[in-house]
């Protein structure tokens, strides 16, 4: 245990209070307006202390695509972005569809020791959408999987989706659906509309997302199970989820930072850095997503961090891979788009990026700042401006769509189980053993 023991002096909490916070033995040992202690101190004036962020949608690529990312490099990127927990998506090679693979990913996470790495299990064997994977074995494995997803692909067979939703009830699991009707989106390259028709790129219509969301909300409600909708991107999707919540249905939804900011017209020059699935949508969709995140229709922000090697983006659009990195920029994008613009306050940001994702995933040691809790904490400078430089990313891949853009707000310190893993924006080399 290399827990850092210190007192954070005069940090501001999301609620507005300015306090001293003592970290000792990996936990928050005291919170008070003034702490006198012989421990080293860190001057937190002007900084916000928030619970570490929790990502429910992270592609760490290991095992199988270590040229794009590893659990270690992804953990480093997570720490840089203020995440103390990430959820590793199942579309690795081999697919995380057995207890063996999810335990391997969890072990790699523990070995990296920079943040909690919670594996997500595949819903179906090999993500093929044909046969349920051994969900219970993954749930009761050492990895303790609670979230299951075929992300990258949709569980499109309605009967299989119904069975999956029913099956995970026995261990309080949740199905995270990548809502994309595969038949309506065969060969799809970008949002279907005026821009796709002009560019001659195969369209990905909003209804292909919305029809699956509507179907799955009804299915989940029918079998009284928990549904989580990955990367919501359309105005219609927001409206369907809002309706479901008004009916008291147990559905949660996420939005990515890139869908909160970027729009389809970026495809104009055919630069595949903007190729992502689901695709960038219209300005109207972006406005609806922002409103949905602000009012709680959309429960959480999730990165869908999707690293790819350079050659998979340095090519023509159709040949390029879908996906964008996001861990290191998520807070700054959300802060700029939602908080600095006055749409959301700090407590709501904590709810969307930490507390609620922790609750959905059942990650008990995350999402709050309280005496006795594990010290999974971050300090952010909420007003610092910085320009994204893709060459300086800690992720092994540099496919960020935000290169050269300037954002407000930067994560400066990350504490994982009390270990000071990032100080002043630099990884310290310390880790949790």
């Amino acid at each position: 245990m290399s827990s850092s023991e210190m007192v954070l002096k005069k940090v501001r909490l999301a609620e507005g209070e300015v306090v001293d916070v003592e970290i000792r033995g990996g936990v928050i040992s005291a919170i008070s307006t003034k702490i006198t202690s012989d421990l080293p101190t860190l001057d937190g004036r002007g900084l916000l202390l928030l619970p570490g962020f929790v990502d429910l949608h992270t592609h760490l690529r290991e095992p199988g695509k270590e040229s794009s990312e590893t659990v270690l490099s992804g953990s480093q990127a997570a720490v840089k972005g203020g995440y103390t927990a990430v959820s590793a998506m199942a579309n690795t090679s081999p697919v995380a569809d057995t207890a063996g693979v999810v335990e391997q990913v969890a072990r790699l996470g523990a070995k990296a020791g920079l943040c909690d790495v919670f594996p997500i299990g595949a819903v179906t064997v090999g993500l093929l959408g044909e046969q349920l994977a051994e969900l219970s074995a993954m749930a009761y494995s050492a990895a303790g999987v609670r979230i299951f997803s075929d992300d990258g692909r949709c569980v499109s067979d309605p009967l299989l989706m119904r069975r999956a939703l029913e099956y995970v009830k026995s261990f309080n699991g949740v199905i995270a659906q990548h809502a994309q009707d595969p038949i309506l989106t065969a060969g799809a390259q970008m949002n279907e509309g005026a821009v796709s028709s002009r560019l001659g790129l195969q369209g990905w219509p909003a209804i292909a997302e919305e029809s699956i969301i509507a179907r799955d909300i009804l299915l989940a409600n029918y079998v009284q199970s928990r549904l989580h909708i990955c990367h919501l991107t359309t105005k219609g999707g927001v409206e369907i989820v809002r309706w479901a919540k008004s009916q008291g249905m147990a559905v949660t939804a996420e939005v990515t930072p890139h869908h909160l900011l970027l729009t389809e017209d970026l495809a104009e020059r055919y630069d595949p850095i903007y190729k992502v699935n689901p695709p960038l949508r219209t300005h109207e969709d972006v406005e609806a997503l922002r409103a949905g995140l602000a009012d709680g229709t959309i429960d959480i922000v999730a990165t869908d961090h999707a690293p790819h090697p350079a050659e998979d983006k340095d090519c023509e659009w159709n040949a390029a891979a879908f996906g964008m990195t996001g861990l290191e920029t998520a807070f700054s994008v959300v802060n700029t788009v939602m908080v600095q613009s006055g749409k959301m306050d700090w407590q709501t940001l904590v709810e969307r990026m930490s507390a609620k994702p922790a609750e959905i995933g059942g990650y008990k040691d995350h999402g709050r700042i309280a005496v006795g809790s594990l010290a999974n904490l971050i300090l952010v400078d909420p007003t610092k401006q910085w320009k994204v430089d893709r060459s300086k990313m800690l992720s092994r891949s540099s496919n960020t769509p935000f290169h050269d853009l300037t954002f407000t707000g930067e994560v400066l310190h990350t504490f994982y189980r009390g270990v000071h893993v990032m100080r002043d924006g630099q990884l310290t080399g310390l880790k949790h053993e």
Partner: protein
Amino acid sequence: MITSGHLLSINDLTRDGAFEVLDTARELSRITDGAIKKLPTLRGRTVVNLFFEDSTRTRLSFEAAAKRLSADVINFSAKGSSVSKGESLKDTAQTLEAMGAELVIVRHGSSGAAARLAQSGWIRSHVVNAGDGMHEHPTQALLDAYTIREHFPEHDRDFSGLRIGIVGDILHSRVARSNALLLTSLGAQVVLIAPPTLIPIGVSSWPVEISYDLDAEIELLDAIMMLRVQSERMSDAFFPSEREYARDYGLGAERVKALKERAIIMHPGPMNRGLEISASSADTERSVILEQVANGVLVRMAVLYLLMGGTAIPTEGVLV
């Protein structure tokens, strides 16, 4: 002049720029009409035909255009090349540029491939789009405009008042996209005629009219452009059967009779005789399909000349 140094889309041409290409093509036609078929303008310069899709006629047309300007031509086709072994577009283009290519003519199945070649910093060459996926085929539109202009000399500087119908698989057609942009920019009215399944979502932002009824339109048209319909579209449920398609949207003898007296019949080729166009319609004297082929060489000469030459067109009688 084509200011970007590339011809990727009709949007790279202003209206004046488009007329400059057409005027240049006409001038080249005049010069090469007699005994002199070949001009020395691009002697010692190298152009590459980079064809990732099979298209013998477009490749030959560009090759003929380049050779009539005395350029050296390297033909590259993806089949049997290192592309089939996984070489990327970028590596292929850089390799060909290293062999001395100054202008790359690219045909590719992926929309935007020509734009990527021109704008990604991979190569410094001029790029001419010879058809990219479902996006554009600008030299086809230029040769179509050239052909229309020759038949309607009273519209030499302005296509206003001409109504041009483009019939068929608009959704997947790069020819339709380029023509819709170019012909409307020159002043024509363009009407896209197809079953609703073959009209793109978002077409309302195009400067065109839409019709599902060929018979209602046919007598209003000055030119009718029939697009090739691929029979595999049937399996994707775009239309129920070839017979039904031909009945509703095919150009048969009855419809040819309904055309205005001076109306011309166009087709970018290759034709599916019996599907979108009947044999008799293709061979009637109203058909200008072979003129289109001849004009294609002239227009492509003009594009190569304007992109690579930059100086005045050589005077008559220049000998090679």
